[in-house]
């Protein structure tokens, strides 16, 4: 498998079985990789959620994956970032204040207010901006302690509430970033994955 269509970035001890199974159900076999070349050039890339912010950033830096991913994103190549995979694209996170994120998405991850349970575990209803192409409103499955509070300019956003409003997902050129887990969000999540695959395949013809 020298030129896989879909690559899942492998870092550390991330649980990749559920995301792999979700793509198999769509008839596509993902290829797990931690090679910077494949991260840069794969037609479609998934950046999964992986442990803690600081540990994920250090491991990516050690393998040269941070620069490969940034270059890929700046070229607008189709990328799906999930949970912590989304947070590492921010400028930083309250989870690991000493570490810098990739800074592709402006803003920093913050924790939930003390009045609500944390981690946020379970199904929360997302509402989507009118111009969202891939996301749709409905209940999605979250497992997170940190989140982005406001959508940066020019991004289409989905929002949810846990104590206060937060960013549930962002859509931008080439990038779909989900704070929730589409691979665990039942039919709605499968629909998002299906539309992302279809739009990625369409997009790849034009560039």
């Amino acid at each position, binding site marked *: 498998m020298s030129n896989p269509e879909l690559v899942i970035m492998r870092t550390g001890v991330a649980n990749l079985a559920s995301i792999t199974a979700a793509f198999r159900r769509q008839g596509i076999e993902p290829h797990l990789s931690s090679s910077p070349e494949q991260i840069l050039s794969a037609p479609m890339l998934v950046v999964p959620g992986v442990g803690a912010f600081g540990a994920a950033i250090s491991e990516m830096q050690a393998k040269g994956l941070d620069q490969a991913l940034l270059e890929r994103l700046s070229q607008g190549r189709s990328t799906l970032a999930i949970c912590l995979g989304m947070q590492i694209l921010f400028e930083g996170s309250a989870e690991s204040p000493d570490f810098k994120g990739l800074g592709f998405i402006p803003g920093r991850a913050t924790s939930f207010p003390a009045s609500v349970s944390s981690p946020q575990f379970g199904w929360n209803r997302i509402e989507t901006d009118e111009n969202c192409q891939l996301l749709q409103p409905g209940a999605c499955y979250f497992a997170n302690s940190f989140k982005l509070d406001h959508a940066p300019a020019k991004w289409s956003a989905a929002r949810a509430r846990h104590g206060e409003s937060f960013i549930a997902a962002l859509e931008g050129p080439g990038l779909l970033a989900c704070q929730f887990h589409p*691979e665990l969000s039942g039919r709605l999540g499968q629909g998002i994955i299906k539309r992302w695959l279809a739009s990625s395949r369409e997009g790849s013809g034009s560039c």
Partner: protein
Amino acid sequence: MLTKRLIPCLDVRDGRVVKGVQFQSLRDAGDPRELAAAYEAQGADELVMLDISATAEGRAACLDTVASIRAELSIPLCVGGGVRAASDVAALLERGADKVASNSAAVRQPELLDEFAARFGSQCTVLALDAARIADSESWDVVIDSGNQATGIDAADWAAEAESRGAGEILLTSHDRDGTGEGYDLDLIQAIASRVRIPIIASGGARNARHLQQAFSAGADAVLAASILHYKTTTLAALKADLAKAGIEVRT
């Protein structure tokens, strides 16, 4: 706002779903993969699978069961039973569990929770806590080894310690109510909820939607149900419809 979760529980022994009363008198309740798919279709928010095999062969079969459930399931899967070391957690995650619950081993060796949380994250470190009420009191004893062994440890203290060690969720089973249909032990749920911020899944004693509603009011974020679903006393859809009518927010 998070919806309240309804979670079917599959107790699996040697590759088959079984269910008993107060952890005893087990009888066959079906094929795990078929039940998992049926429950997702009915609106399950998550699935818990507890491996109660007593043998190495049974354990190996359960790993295969996890993989076969994962292939179909697009909702979260929590697996517990016989988890003694980080290698057990890794094996379950690799097969497709999203969370792993530990019970007796965590009581014997509490630092396992720190290790699991550090290596795999709190989001997949679940404490399964089986509690038995101490007669005529508002205290509960932690019981282990499928309820056969009392520990003398206070359940509320243990819940708080588990949270501080990194557990991300507590699967709280009332040993007294398990399989009885008498309703959840609401005092137990309240006692634990007042001590921790992490979500609580209440388990043991559900017969109807009113029982579920009571558990949510007592402080549970999610409820586990087994017997009433396996033996088709009711369905998830019917329970959710009743809960929605009672003003409880559920995913439909």
